[in-house]
């Protein structure tokens, strides 16, 4: 576990020094929030089923952006070999990146959420429940995307391949997260918590699965 924390701390330090991945993801989410009301119309965009769905789709692609950027940084000067030499090796690399990227995506999600609330004039009936949904919902995103980015690390078609592999695998997470957040928006505390419970289960399953196959998936 020490290796994982070392990787996570290193990852977060690198993000703080060069926050290009975070900045790109936030810009991407902001752009999507800005255009959604134009594309689907302001009334539809504000609906408690539509706004959370667009929010989570934006976060999914933001997760792909920050994870790809994170691995690109490792590849730039073969730093990945040094990281793999740390205690824990590939498992520590996976767990560390999972911790750091979940935190980064949560930060992107908070900025995107505030933007969406402000720009779409949303009323958040249960802010605490919404925060729980976002906190649990962001864990599964890097859990899957890290494996997909690792599998396609040195392939020329990576940019197209990662979404193709990640989106189908994350479908249960998108459904649960959209429902948890939508019900928090509309004021259904029990329903929101039930979906958040499912989000926790999904996050655990993906994280354990990711840890199990990380040794094989990361070259």
């Amino acid at each position, binding site marked *: 576990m020490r290796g994982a924390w070392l990787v996570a701390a290193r990852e977060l330090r690198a993000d703080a020094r060069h926050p290009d991945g975070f900045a790109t993801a936030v810009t991407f989410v902001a752009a999507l929030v800005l255009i959604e009301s134009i594309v689907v119309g302001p009334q539809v965009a504000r609906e408690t089923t539509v706004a959370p769905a667009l929010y989570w789709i934006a976060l999914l692609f933001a997760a792909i952006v920050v994870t790809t950027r994170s691995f690109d940084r490792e590849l730039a000067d073969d730093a990945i070999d040094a990281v793999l030499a740390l205690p824990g090796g590939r498992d520590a690399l996976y767990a560390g990146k999972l911790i750091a990227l979940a935190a980064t995506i949560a930060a992107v999600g908070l900025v995107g959420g505030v933007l969406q609330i402000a720009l779409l004039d949303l009323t958040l009936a249960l802010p605490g429940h919404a925060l729980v949904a976002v906190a649990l919902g962001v864990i599964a995103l890097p859990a899957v995307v890290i494996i997909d980015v690792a*599998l*396609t690390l040195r*392939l020329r*078609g990576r940019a197209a391949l990662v979404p193709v*592999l990640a989106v189908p695998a994350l479908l249960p997470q998108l459904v649960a997260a959209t429902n948890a957040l939508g019900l928090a928006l509309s004021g259904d505390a029990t329903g929101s918590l039930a979906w958040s419970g499912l989000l926790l289960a999904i996050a655990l399953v993906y994280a354990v699965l990711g840890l199990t*196959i990380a040794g*094989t998936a990361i*070259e």
Partner: protein
Amino acid sequence: MTTTALRGSSASWIRLSLGLASLAGALVASVMALVWAPPDANQGEVQRIMYVHVPSAWTAYLAFAIVFVASAGWLWTRRRIFDAIAVASAEIGVLFTGLALVAGSIWAKPTWGVWWTWEPRLITTAVMFVMYVGYLLLRSLSADVEGRATRAAVIGVVAVVNIPIVHLSVTWMNALHQLPTVLRPDGPAMDGRMLATLIVSVLAFTLICAWLMVARVALETSRQERVLDARGA
């Protein structure tokens, strides 16, 4: 099973036998489906698409289950035959999933009034299809033989979870798609001739799957050997 086992004279004989058996099975199933089986009391003649749709879905499940076993076999033993079986099964699975989706759409138009509707069985099947297309894309974009096999095997092991999700989606969620009529706790709820036709169709499709599999595995092992020879040279 060795790498060359499928390419000798006995392998040719197996391929020929499977090809003839597949042809015979397809002919018998076609006659039974088009002539012998009665039309459905409610749906009429359009229900006969079931004799293509259900066996296609079954064959896809079978192929993807083989992808899982072969992928685990590769990760465990690193024997190339497992990688050849995995890619052959994945291609066959994608082919039959596509066929099941198309046949289902043709049935849905006169029955439901639409080619496609957003209901759990259709969505989960489409997701399974996309996931295995991703598997094949992942393979096609990698030139390194060993690395490609390992990457693909990881996806092959993980993606198997789709099979129970697709199969059980109609019972887990309120769905427009009809519930199972054969694999039910209280036995099949279907006319005897329809059931017999369906079973024969499933057997015919399974034979076709086996025939395609043997042919494709032979092709893949031959390709693997060419690559290894080129590398050695």
